[in-house]
């Protein structure tokens, strides 16, 4: 852990050397996320609800997903850039070092510009939480925190799957984007509104709905069983097969040579 903090502060210092670049990239991040937020607001200016959810409830959903995704990227960006690491042989160097490989990949990258999105998600939450009409008892606060924390771990698992696939293909796989970026982009609406098929897929195959839709039902009092509040915890199980896949890929790894 001490070593990770050291790596982290190293990345922070190196990125702070290019202040203008840092500023513009953060601004870009902010605006990209902001355009999604604007699109939600424009749609709600015309239609008052979607699938029975109000504007504020949808904003909570949007902010939770964005925060979870940005935290996952902040810490797990190394896995996102893994194909590059494989392609340029940098991974071979990691293999010969006397440290855990996963730790090294994890520590290899940090992108501070994601703070721009985390800040925006925080601002949206600060706006929506008091206006949502939800009575914020301790169990609801816990549910909301679980959604963010488990959501971040879930997105992180998806980055690990992405990295694992690239052991076999060397190149990145665009279709994984539909699960990572798509999860963020389409997660602006509760997954239930996309219909049964999509909801089943996102419950049993890639459990994004477990950190978003089901706990949201608990938050807005559509379901009052505590089970719904705890669904994000079950989503953590997804990390196991992802980790397994990564180990499997690692065993089959052949260097691309130098």
């Amino acid at each position, binding site marked *: 852990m001490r070593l990770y903090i050291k790596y982290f502060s190293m990345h922070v210092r190196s990125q702070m050397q290019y202040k203008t670049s840092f*500023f513009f990239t953060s*601004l870009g991040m902010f605006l990209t996320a902001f355009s999604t937020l604007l699109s939600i607001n424009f749609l709600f200016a015309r239609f008052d609800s979607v699938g029975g959810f109000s504007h504020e409830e949808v904003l909570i959903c949007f902010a939770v997903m964005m925060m979870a995704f940005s935290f996952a990227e902040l810490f797990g960006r190394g896995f996102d850039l893994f194909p590059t690491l494989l392609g340029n042989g940098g991974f071979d160097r990691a293999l010969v070092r006397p440290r855990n490989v996963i730790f090294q990949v994890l520590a290899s990258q940090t992108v501070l510009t994601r703070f721009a999105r985390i800040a925006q998600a925080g601002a949206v939450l600060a706006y929506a939480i008091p206006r949502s009409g939800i009575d914020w008892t301790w169990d609801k606060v816990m549910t909301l925190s679980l959604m963010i924390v488990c959501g971040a771990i879930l997105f992180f698992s998806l980055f690990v799957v992405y990295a694992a696939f690239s052991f076999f293909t060397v190149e990145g796989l665009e*279709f994984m984007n539909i699960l990572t970026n798509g999860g963020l982009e389409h997660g602006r609406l509760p997954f239930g509104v996309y219909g049964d098929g999509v909801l089943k897929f996102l419950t049993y195959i890639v459990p994004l709905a477990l950190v978003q839709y089901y706990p949201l039902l608990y938050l807005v009092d559509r379901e009052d069983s505590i089970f719904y509040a705890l669904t994000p915890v079950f989503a953590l199980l997804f990390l196991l097969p992802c980790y397994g896949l990564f180990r499997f890929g690692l065993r089959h790894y052949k260097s691309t040579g130098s």
Partner: protein
Amino acid sequence: MSRRINIKPYTALFRIRFTNALQYRTAAIAGIVTNFAWGFMLILAFSAFYDANPEASPMTFQQTVAYVWVQQAFIVMFFMWFFENSIFEDIESGQVSYDMVRPMDLYGRWFSMAAANRVARAALRCIPVLIVAFILPEPFRLALPGELGRLGLFFLSMALSVGVVVSFSMLIYISAFFTINGLGSRVVVASVGDFLAGAIIPIPFFPDTLRVLAELSPFGAMQNMPLLIFSGHLAGDALIRGLILQVFWLIVLLLAGRALMGRALKRVIVQGG
């Protein structure tokens, strides 16, 4: 002095880039799957909104479905986001000095490269997405425009919009001469521009003031026009006005790009041998 423009090198360049882009078939298949899933999720989301309040929408559901499918099918043509990174690399690495000694106009060269790449990648990707969209069950099926004339106008407007997108991106490529690290500002311009072009939600869904501004801006002359023509949302005078605006912006952006290019090349300093 007679100035004859030889078009052959540009068409040759266009052909090379085109065949080049056709090589990446696996990437294209992965892209098609992504476009398809993405479009489907968008349509399902719109469908949920329409269910809540069908009268509140400026476009019919059918029109929105057509908008989304055609957008996904031709996404690489329309989104500013797909920059030609090799141009940035050439400028940043100084490689551009070689291009400057070629007996070929640099603006035309880059323009045809960027346009070829967009058209080639779209040509490869559009057909599977369109086929699936045409055979989907109602109400998610993509319907062809009723009259043949509208289809013709669609293709005309699509060609114009590729021109506008590429000539706008040219300004951004050329600005790389002035700024060393332009990645950040690129992201800013692309995300604002694509949003105003109707990439996330169609322009008719914008609030009124912003809608008018977006329609008049160069961004409104991009994907907005062909997609609204195909879906049948745009007709009559509004359609003609839109096409004229597209031509207007294309000319303005081309002139602006050439002027900026002239200024940029005057101050290029090539170091070393």
